[in-house]
């Protein structure tokens, strides 16, 4: 962990060498989800509500997922662009250093410009929370934080799975983006508006539902009993991440026996 922070520091200093591009990209990142959010806003101003969900309830969901996405894109970027490490042979360099490959790949790249996106989603989240009549308890505050944290872990897991595929294909695949971008677009709305199968997939296979829709029910006191269960569901993200890490280790072993 300490080493991770050291990597963070050196890459931050590197990024600061290119200040203009940093500010421009950050600015751009602020506006990308902004347009998506504007779409959400205008849809609600036209139709009023979405299957029983109000604008601010949906905005809360949107804020949580986009915050998790921007944080994971910033801090787990090393896995997102992992194919470039394999193609350039830089991964060999990581293997001759006496640290775990996971820390080193995480530390190989950060995308600080995602800060713009983070600010934008934080604003949306704050606005939603301000306007929702939530009766706050310490557990609800914890749940909200766990929703974001769990979201980061799920996105991280998908990035890692996608990176692992590079050991076989060398070049990056867009399959992962299907799940990250697709998952993000799906999970920014309450999941029960979709077809049942979609909901099941994003609850039990890739548990975005466990960090957005289901704990959202708890925050809004819409659960029928089992409140605590809903509150703690974001922990399911850990259950998703663990097998992803195991698959990664398997991939590293494969790489070292093929040298591809």
């Amino acid at each position, binding site marked *: 962990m300490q080493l991770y922070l050291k990597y963070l520091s050196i890459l931050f200093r590197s990024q600061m060498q290119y200040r203009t591009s940093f500010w421009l990209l950050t600015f751009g990142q602020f506006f990308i989800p902004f347009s998506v959010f504007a779409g959400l806003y205008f849809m609600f101003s036209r139709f009023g509500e979405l299957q029983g969900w109000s604008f601010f309830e949906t905005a809360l969901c949107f804020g949580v997922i986009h915050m998790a996405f921007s944080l994971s894109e910033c801090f787990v970027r090393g896995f997102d662009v992992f194919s470039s490490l394999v193609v350039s042979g830089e991964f060999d360099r990581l293997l*001759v*250093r006496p*640290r775990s490959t996971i820390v080193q790949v995480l530390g190989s790249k950060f995308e600080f410009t995602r800060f713009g996106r983070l600010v934008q989603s934080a604003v949306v989240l704050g606005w939603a929370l301000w306007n929702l009549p939530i009766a706050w308890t310490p557990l609800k505050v914890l749940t909200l934080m766990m929703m974001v944290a769990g979201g980061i872990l799920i996105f991280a897991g998908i990035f890692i799975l996608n990176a692992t595929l590079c050991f076989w294909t060398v070049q990056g695949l867009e399959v992962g983006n299907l799940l990250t971008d697709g998952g993000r677009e799906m999970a920014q709305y309450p999941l029960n508006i979709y077809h049942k199968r979609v909901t099941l997939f994003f609850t039990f296979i890739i548990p975005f539902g466990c960090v957005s829709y289901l704990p959202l029910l708890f925050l809004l006191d819409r659960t029928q009993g089992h409140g605590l269960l809903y509150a703690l569901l974001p922990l399911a993200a850990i259950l998703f991440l663990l097998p992803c890490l195991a698959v990664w280790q398997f991939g590293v072993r494969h790489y070292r026996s093929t*040298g591809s």
Partner: protein
Amino acid sequence: MGNPIISLEGIGKTFKVAKRAAGVRQAAKALFYRKHTFVEALKDISFTIREGEIAGYIGPNGAGKSTTIKVMCGILVPDEGDCKVMGYTPWKSRTAYVGNIGVVFGQRSQLWWDVPVIDSFELLRDIYKVPDTRYRKNLSMLTETLALADLIHVPVRQLSLGQRMRCEIAASLLHDPRILFLDEPTIGLDAASKIAVRQFIKTIHKEKGITVILTTHDMNDIEALAERILMIGKGSLLYDGSLDELRRRFGSSRTLTVDYRDCLRPVDIPGAVRHSWSPQQAVYTFDSAQISLTGVISQLSEQAEILDVAVDSKSVDELILQLYKEHQI
């Protein structure tokens, strides 16, 4: 010379390579169906390197040099055979093992591009968990021997290739490795930088007694540094011995250029081959193991008034080329 530090026993490695034919159509076909061929990158490679040796590992491109280095560094797992480095099997206990080795890939940087060199050094200190006192001692030693004082506060991207290579080598020695792997450390360097790098490798070897494995295509590196040559071709180890031994084997041939006062007839000398002749100069080659230099000159001086002679022995490049030829690689 110390105890064996690296030993390879019958290492073999086969790669599965997809066959590709030219043309868009073939490429499209390859999306669905691919033929594979198996390439034997290493065949039954065995050798031992003793602690404190400098071994030059040579061979033409694609001969298996890098593959062997990768096996010894723990990056690659061989299909068969056994490799022990300092008691470790490199690919089995990777993290415990690699803290004891330093690796320089001449073509790839291990420094962080946009920050001053010293920042990279500090991060490497943390990666290798080098204690602070040892780090400072090593840093000052390396700064002095490599003349880095002016470089370490400059961002890496502003360094010349030669300056960068000096920093690369320093970076790989911060954690006191016992073995240093240098993969083409002089590639692309100008003459002065090459000599500086060689000089430094020599110094560090002498002072620290570090074992050095060096791959290169520049035979001057080998001549300046390596006491021992390992040559690999088509995946097999073809030669393992000293440079002097190689010289004895192939290097007994000499070229003699003689200038003399006008001599109207070409002079033949038994045992030597005449390559060119003019009334002022002639070039002969002969095998110094068969006929002595004084013998050739004395026979010549009987026929002509010699003004000047120049004797050349084969360069290391030519020796290696002859070795390649002998093995048809």
